[in-house]
């Protein structure tokens, strides 16, 4: 282990900083998310993820936000274990009838001010699950949604971008008379 840690001390970090052609967008976004989050919430935005019936594809990409390439925590964006600690609910999936109650209760357990981000195509309008007896609808049918991030699933970059849009909107709302 010492060898690995020692190597890590001297190796260039995996976290993407220097913009290469491909990763310029990620880096640009990362900086912008950092600034907006700091203005609004003093460098801390806690996110609670709720799977309201997704296929688990979105969860995989949300997980990826935490890997060293995206390292979402460097911007103060943090995934927390309870809705009571959260500023943002990140909801995936077409809301199934079996999950409706749990989603509502999670929403009510989240303190104000709070935002809801619906992640993925089926969180918007049920996607390919439209028409099923077992599905309520998009997330906005159950709780008010502030932002929707499209994709099936959205890439980690797209999710970061979405967080930025949300922060800007929240910022504008806070500063408008």
């Amino acid at each position, binding site marked *: *282990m010492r060898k690995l840690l020692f190597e890590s001390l001297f190796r260039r970090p995996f976290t993407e900083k220097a913009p290469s052609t491909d990763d310029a967008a990620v880096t640009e976004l990362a900086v912008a998310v950092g600034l907006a989050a700091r203005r609004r919430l003093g460098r801390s935005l806690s996110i609670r993820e709720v799977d309201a*019936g997704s296929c688990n594809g979105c969860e*995989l990409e949300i997980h990826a936000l935490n*890997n060293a*390439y995206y390292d979402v925590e460097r911007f103060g964006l943090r995934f927390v*274990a309870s809705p009571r600690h959260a500023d943002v609910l990140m909801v995936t999936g077409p809301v199934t009838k079996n*999950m409706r109650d749990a989603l509502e209760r999670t929403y009510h357990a989240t303190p104000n001010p709070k935002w809801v981000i619906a992640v993925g195509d089926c969180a918007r309008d049920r996607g390919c699950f439209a028409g099923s*007896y077992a599905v309520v609808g998009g997330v906005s049918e159950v709780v008010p949604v502030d932002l929707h991030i499209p994709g099936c699933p959205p890439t980690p970059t797209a999710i970061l971008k979405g967080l930025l849009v949300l922060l800007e909107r929240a910022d504008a709302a806070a500063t408008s008379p």
Partner: protein
Amino acid sequence: MPSLIDLMLEGREVRQHGPWPRAVVDASVWQFAASELALGRWSLLGLWGEPSTVHMAIMDEETAEIAVVSLSCPDRSYPSIGRHHLPALRLERAIHDLFGLSAEGAPDPRPWLDHNRWGTRFPLGDRIDALPQASPYRFLPAEGDGLHQIAVGPVHAGTIEPGHFRFTASGETVVRLEPRLGYAHKGIEGLMMGAGLERAAQLAGRVSGDSTVAYAFAFARAVEAALEIVVSDRAIWLRALLAELERLAHHLGDIGAICNDASFALMHAHCSILREDVLRASDTAFGHRLMRDIVVPGGVTHNLNAGGMEIIQAALDSIRQRFPALVELYDNTASLQDRTVGTGVLKPALAKQYAPGGYIGRASGRSFDARKVLAYPPYDRLRFEVPVLNEGDVNARIWIRVREVGQSLSLIDQILDRLPEGPVRAKAGQFRKPREGMAIVEGFRGDVLVWLRLRDGRVERCHLRDPSWFQWPLLEAAIEGNIVADFPLCNKSFNCSYSGPDL
């Protein structure tokens, strides 16, 4: 000992079914099959319903023979398999919830997928109104002094899928765990009914997002078996490439995540980097990080992009260079080994009974791997080994994954080396008469089974059986006697799908 063929001869064979035989049998043959399952001579592959029929797929593991037996249930009931062979229990409960067919004599009549929220009962059979009031779900009892219950979920502390776990504990020790699932039930089999092939393939790829390639692959093979479509060589090899990239990404992710649940974050950080490399290579090569909607009936929709081969090769090189040090780190860290060795033991006898696929079975002495045993193309032309261990603990499930990473690396090398040229998509044939097909494909988590009947180019009925149907019950057995704090560790080492069996 009767063979599966003898069983088939007892019934009326359904001619339009491929590639394995299906026979309509009477109740006595059905019950005979149940007793053979109970004696451990055969393994249960799947059990599913139609409005007035039940079907059961069974396999003789010694000869790799597979067959489907069907029993018609005019009076809406059939002799329970679960009564004799426990692995069938939840499948029977699901059949009841969806079709209203009762398993006669089943020891557990509680609902499974139906939480009384759909506004209707038996949505895929003869619908009736929902119960006016949901009766509380009765968890299995545990009796003894000083026992307490811990209720967890459906919304969990981590970024994971929804499900409820009810622990009964004595102090720190888990006496009983019973999960209640069905929260992610989206009614996929209902949406399948009447869907065109394109839409049905899309739905199949969204049953369990982490196995999107495996599901699409199995669905495509089932359609191709039904319609006798010949897939081009290049498409066959590209499918295996997609499947191995999926396996590689998830195994790498799992190895790190299991260690993370033992609070060893360093492994997680490093494995996540390797996993991300694979996803990025997949994105460059096929235009989607999870390679969704690429495998379709008749072939693949996406050829390997220019530069795809090189970037995949680069990802492999990087894994070959960095992964061995991580395996060494895992193996040489006593505090981590202390958590994983001897924890969450699944006994080989139970693994034989439940026939769980994937690393769960292979860590407990069950050598089944659909790629090897069923040798569907192109795996019949590829060299690889199926690692098997007998310890059945968290450590063994990690080691199976570690070795499978090695096998996948070698498989991808062979595929890239021998990838044939040619078209990647064939046209689907047209059949007016009903045709049936079945396929089993090895996903990263285990074997995915798809059975379907097509009529007029549409899906009449499609059943998708996730490997986790037979894995969840074993997690309950493996956690017994462990401490509550080791549950995340055991759970991650199983990494069962919620969405897959919830459908």
